[in-house]
């Protein structure tokens, strides 16, 4: 099993979710996040003072998927979140040792 983590633009989040649900992903964890990459934020003027907004709002999506589905899920997320402009975000994959469904006690792929 793998943990797929994606950080995407907030306005692309609905597209990502729709695409993942269509593919059959049963659940995910979503957090509002802020950060920066090459986008590096932007300059704003507020009450006469100019300053850099270095942390940009993002949505962080975490999904645990079976090994066979990893490539598909990553591709789906990337396609749905892409605008081609700077700041589209990242997707990364990490190995997962074990998963337990708390309600039933099921383990491994059965718990996904």
């Amino acid at each position, binding site marked *: 099993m793998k943990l797929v983590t994606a950080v995407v633009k907030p306005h692309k989040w609905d597209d990502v979710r729709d695409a993942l649900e269509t593919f059959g992903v049963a659940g995910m964890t979503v957090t509002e996040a802020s950060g920066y990459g090459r986008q590096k934020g932007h300059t704003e*003027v*507020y*009450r*006469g*003072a100019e*300053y850099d*907004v270095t942390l940009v709002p993002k949505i962080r999506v975490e999904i645990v998927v079976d090994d066979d589905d990893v490539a598909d899920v990553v591709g789906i997320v990337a396609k749905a979140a892409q605008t081609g402009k700077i700041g589209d975000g990242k997707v990364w994959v990490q190995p997962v040792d*074990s998963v*337990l469904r708390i309600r039933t*006690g099921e*383990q491994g792929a059965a718990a996904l």
Partner: protein
Amino acid sequence: MRHADTAWVLVSTALVMLMTPGLALFYGGMTRAKSVLNMMMMSFSTLALVSVLWVLYGYSIAFGESDSQLIGSLDNLGFHGLNGASVLSFAAFQLMFAIITPALISGAVADRAKFLGWCVFVVAWTTLVYFPVANWVFDFGVDGALGDDAGWIVEWGVQDFAGGTAVHVNAGAAALALALVLGRRIGWRRDPMRPHNLPLVLLGAGLLWFGWFGFNAGSALAADGLAATAFVNTQAATAAAVIGWLVVEQVRDGRPTTLGAASGAVAGLVAITPACAFVSPLGALLLGVLAGAICALAVGLKWRLGYDDSLDVVGVHLVGGAFGSIALGFLSLDGGILYGGSAVLLGKQAVAVLAVGTFSFVTALVLAKLIDLTIGFRLDREDESAGIDLAEHAESGYDLTIAGVGGRTQAAAPDPVAAGVPSEAQRDEGRVPA
């Protein structure tokens, strides 16, 4: 005093009282979330402290009968000898002015003033500065006839209907002194320190605007045409000031902000305060739009000059109050240059602004320095970083997460058995999945 007049003054008194909680919201929303409670407490503590002082000796020092044009007397300590609707309603009305003036100063010291230091400052400054200055501006002498026993500013012919000098220049100058003594907040200039709750700021500005009708129209001390004039001009100037401030933001920054709308309203209210009974409605519009634009530019000064006037007390109250007072030299229907008057009024207005501003600034500077050297005025760096609310009041303004602050009462310490934690033996048996 006719009953109708008493009724209007008492209603106005209640309106002005509401301005201080309004100010607490206005300022509280502008701070960061970690210091909203301390900011609001500075207003609420002032409400309590000054009310007590007023009854004990404040009214007497400000308005007790005396031959002096600078100060009252000790004749009315403990409200001794004050009887009847006329004097009691005046005493109550003036108390609300004495409360909001020091409360206004608190915006300059957001996030970093020890609460005890603030309380001592309020008591000392109100006693040494506000009470005498209230005499200068608001003591109209016996039966309002002016004369040698009236305050020197009002007796000299300076026009300050509701306290442009006594309230706004006074508070603004003290605010500058406190900002200088306490120094800049950690991260000033580096961190944006944007307001954490703009709806609170707008609600507070709305309450201030509402209460200000009592402040300005109530200062007629009668339910008459003068009160109605002040009322109309207050609305006209404030509305124009909102527009003036927002136009500056639109042109300079590209976007009009809610903070600008709220600040513009206050700037207009401040500027029309001395002028509300002395200008035409068109004069009020002009005064307002200029005040909004000037204050919008003035709040940027702190970045250039390097003082941390956190919530722009100087930029709005000192600048707005001075502008409104001095503009009367041109716009007053009674002696203004645009209405056929000479420069005499203009000169007197400027002298009054300078006198009140200098007296307040110097005294506040000395008091703040003394407090800092004795009991300490500036919060520890660590407490300031973590947030003054927790450090000084053991509270936080918002507890929005399910996990709360993570605390537990001692009585509710968790029982491992009830919580289902496996015993050592069970763990050895490997019943817990890896």
